[in-house]
């Protein structure tokens, strides 16, 4: 394992440990809820980064994976009586497969056309679910409180789901890292920088792009499954909320696209900012306006995001904070 010798491997381990230990030591439920949201944001952002930062494809509809994962998981638990331990991975696998098929189709498009198609996928899936009666149509699916009994009651279940979400976040960070230092990652980076040249050099571009799209669906789908299990309620407008997709884009751009540290720090900072905006008197009703303005400022003045700026100033840090 050459990865064990790299500092970044241990940095990720420290972050996970902090997420696990902090709310337990403090025994602070509101801190846990805030960190839970941060873990979800980090999962969404670092998987979006596989497409946006690595392969250079703008996926505006990445939230569709989260929502579909939520639906598959809640449905399997509610109607098929599957345990969470099976339903969540099943959500990940099935959504990945669907994404692979979608990917082979829409990844023929490039640039703005691809970005539009990803919005279309999200809206199309949402419209489908709204009219799909086994999934409760527009009113969604509810889980009874008794669903938490196998995990030792609601209080304990919330802690367990939190640790699982942190685990999925950790896997997302390690996955991003493993891909970055692999041949697959090199091929994706080549596609991101000059797709035509990459193809002439032998990078199997359609397969790699579809694979990246599919892989980027896996962990967000599991995360969605856990998240909506915890809520015990899922409905189309929450599951396929384009606003959350846009926030994931802002996070990746804020932290620095293509960097793993950037996606993580961006997600954490954004979650804090959002929490502060939502509770402030002035901004409570238009926190998305602030994300829009933030995105504009980043794109105009710091296109590399936080990590892009740091790497530019201190190139040596590239090897530490990847």
């Amino acid at each position: 394992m050459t990865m064990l010798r790299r500092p970044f491997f241990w940095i990720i381990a420290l972050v996970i440990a902090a997420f696990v230990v902090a709310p337990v030591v403090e025994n602070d439920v509101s801190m846990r809820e805030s960190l839970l949201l941060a873990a979800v944001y980090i999962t969404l952002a670092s998987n979006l980064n596989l497409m946006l930062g690595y392969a250079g494809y703008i996926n505006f509809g990445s939230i569709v994976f989260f929502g579909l994962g939520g639906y598959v998981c809640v449905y399997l638990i509610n109607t098929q009586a599957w345990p969470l331990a099976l339903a969540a991975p099943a959500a990940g696998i099935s959504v990945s497969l669907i994404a692979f098929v979608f990917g082979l189709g829409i990844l023929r498009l490039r640039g703005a056309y691809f970005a539009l198609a990803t919005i279309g996928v999200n809206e199309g899936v949402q419209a489908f679910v709204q009219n799909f009666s086994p999934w409760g149509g527009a009113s969604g699916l509810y889980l009874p409180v008794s669903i938490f009994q196998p995990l030792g009651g609601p209080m304990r279940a919330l802690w367990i789901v939190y640790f699982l979400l942190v685990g999925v976040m950790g896997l997302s960070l390690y996955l991003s890292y493993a891909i970055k230092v692999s041949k697959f990652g090199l091929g994706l980076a080549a596609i991101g920088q000059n797709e035509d040249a990459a193809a002439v050099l032998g990078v199997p571009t359609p397969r790699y792009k579809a694979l990246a799209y599919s892989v980027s669906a896996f962990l967000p789908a599991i995360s969605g499954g856990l998240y909506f299990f915890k809520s015990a309620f899922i409905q189309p407008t929450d599951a396929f909320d384009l606003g959350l997709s846009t926030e994931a884009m802002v996070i990746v751009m804020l932290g620095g696209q293509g960097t793993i540290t950037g996606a993580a720090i961006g997600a954490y900072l954004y979650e804090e900012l959002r929490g502060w905006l939502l509770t402030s008197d002035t901004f409570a009703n238009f926190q998305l306006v602030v994300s829009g303005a933030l995105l504009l400022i980043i794109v105009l003045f710091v296109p590399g995001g936080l990590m892009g700026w740091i790497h530019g100033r201190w190139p040596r840090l590239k090897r530490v904070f990847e």
Partner: protein
Amino acid sequence: MTPLLELVDLTKSFGGVKAVSGLSFAVNEREILGLIGPNGAGKSTVFNLISGVFRPDRGRVRFRGIDITNQPPYRVARHGLARAHQIVQPLPLMSVLENCMVGACFGQENLSLARAREAARESAVFVGLEERLATPAAQLTIAGKKRLELARALAAGPVLMLLDEVLAGLNPTEVERMTDVIRRIRGRGIAILIIEHLMQAIMGLSDRIVVLNAGQKLAEGVPEAVANDPAVIVAYLGDPAAAEALHREART
């Protein structure tokens, strides 16, 4: 002996323009074949047809006995065919070494990352980029980028390289160095199909030459014979006196 690369009756139109029409020629193993012709003759289109960027309307492309017509570029590359572009196509944010690693990883030999790093370093040094290994490709000079095109193609471990005007835009010293590199690449047993406008250079480099005019083959043969071909002189060089001068140059 079957040729390494064989084009049979290759035809491609863009709208009403026949860019390449009924073109047939072959490249033999270890050969340097020059492809020349006036601007717009269809030379780069031929390269795009061979490497799979364009699909021909008609005709076949065979490489090492395999029919590669209509195969996408990444499949063609895997068969051992590498290309250097006329308009340089670096992966701008990657270093020189990483650019070459992409070539090595996804070329014929399908190397692992670690072995690709070795192959990449070796080919970068071979073309004279040893001091630029860590430089981002975007920061290279035009001569450097041309070298990078060559190094990246070489790193793939090809049996045939397509070189599209790798000498264009270089000063005489750089041209001299580059032609030397090309000769040494052939010395490794790699066949080369080269497009070039610098007559002196290509006449000196090539074993044989194919002349293209308006998408069709005008002449084929050893450099001297081609340079003396009346059809070539009229259609391509335009002026018999210029051909005469060129002929003398090629000899000296």
